[in-house]
């Protein structure tokens, strides 16, 4: 397996792929090293932070990211599904979603509800819906969500498939913490949104 081969499948070099049509809020922070690619529109709402080496791929459908989301390094959003059946829908991340390092969110009508936390290296299958009203789920590191799976609100998915309900009731606190984190990152991450606009 040559290294270039692997690179291709993991994370294509910036500029190699067509730039996606984007619709970015002016307060969005995207590291220069991130990749926005595909044919459909990528919408990113205000105060969202996108770390380096991310890949937002809209070639299978539009990608919508809500307000105050944090997308960490090496995340792939809109990855081609492992499920071969066709379906041309995108990915929606609502507000206050955190996607940690190296998580993969497959394309295909996938919805990540407000305040969800996708752990390190987790994989969200196509068409999965986190939260009935799509809110505040926690997916721990290296968990896999099968395509089409639906999680009720406040679900914690841990130990590779076990579920429980989060009853801490710290939603507000979490959102505030996220806002504060974004506040810091905005100052730290070098960004030039115009690069991503045509």
């Amino acid at each position, binding site marked *: 397996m040559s290294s270039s081969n692997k690179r291709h499948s993991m994370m294509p070099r910036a500029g190699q792929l067509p730039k996606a049509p984007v619709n970015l809020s002016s307060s969005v922070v995207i590291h220069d090293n991130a990749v926005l690619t595909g044919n459909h529109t990528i919408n990113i709402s205000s105060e969202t932070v996108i770390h*380096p080496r991310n890949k937002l791929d809209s070639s299978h459908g539009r990608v919508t990211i809500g307000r105050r989301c944090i997308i960490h390094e090496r995340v792939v959003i809109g990855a081609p599904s492992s499920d071969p059946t066709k379906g041309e829908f995108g990915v929606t991340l609502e507000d206050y979603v955190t996607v940690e390092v190296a998580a993969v969110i497959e394309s295909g009508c996938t919805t990540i509800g407000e305040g969800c936390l996708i752990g390190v290296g987790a994989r969200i299958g196509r068409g999965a819906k986190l939260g009935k009203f799509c809110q505040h789920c926690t997916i721990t590191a290296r968990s896999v969500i099968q395509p089409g799976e639906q999680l009720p609100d406040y679900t914690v998915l841990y130990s590779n498939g076990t579920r429980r309900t989060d009853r801490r009731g710290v939603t507000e606190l979490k959102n505030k913490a996220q806002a504060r984190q974004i506040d810091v990152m905005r100052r730290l991450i070098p960004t030039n949104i115009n690069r991503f606009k045509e």
Partner: protein
Amino acid sequence: MSSRKQVKGEYIETDTGNKVSRKANLIGTQHIMLGGKTVIMADAMGSSGAAPQSNTSIFIGRYCFLSRGCCLRPPGRIYKGAFTYMPLRIGDHVFVGENSVVQAATVGSHVHIAANAVVGEFAIVKDYVRILEGTVVPANMVIPSFSVVAGQPGRVIGEVPEGGHEQFEMREMYKTVGNNVPPPAAPAAQAV
């Protein structure tokens, strides 16, 4: 190990003996400190792009080995009301396997982190620890010396035996990577 077939000149070799792949992804290099004789393979990622509060945010000791696709990141938390990144310190002879993500506060010396593992934020990994494949070490966990850790969430499942200390030694492995690597030496790279 695919290192043997790599094209000549893939690695940048520094004066202190670091071998860094040209395809490695180091973000915020001025904040990453390598102790020397450390190997960083292609696609390995050290990211301190977002953490320049302290002068150096990733410290890596000697004879460390960062495999393909692994990712080192300083941990961050809300401290005294503000979100702050803390440094990530890694000792000597530390192996980080493919696609592993390390966000620990401290990783001691002689630590083996196998492929696809996740070391959570602010975890403290002491010396002579073996983290098996696919382990998820939860945030804030302390792993004492001579532990074998596995599972999701990670738990100590055993002790490193007395005779197993030498296996953490990375000198041999260091020699197997580089621009002009001699053909593999005595077939002892992987002891029984």
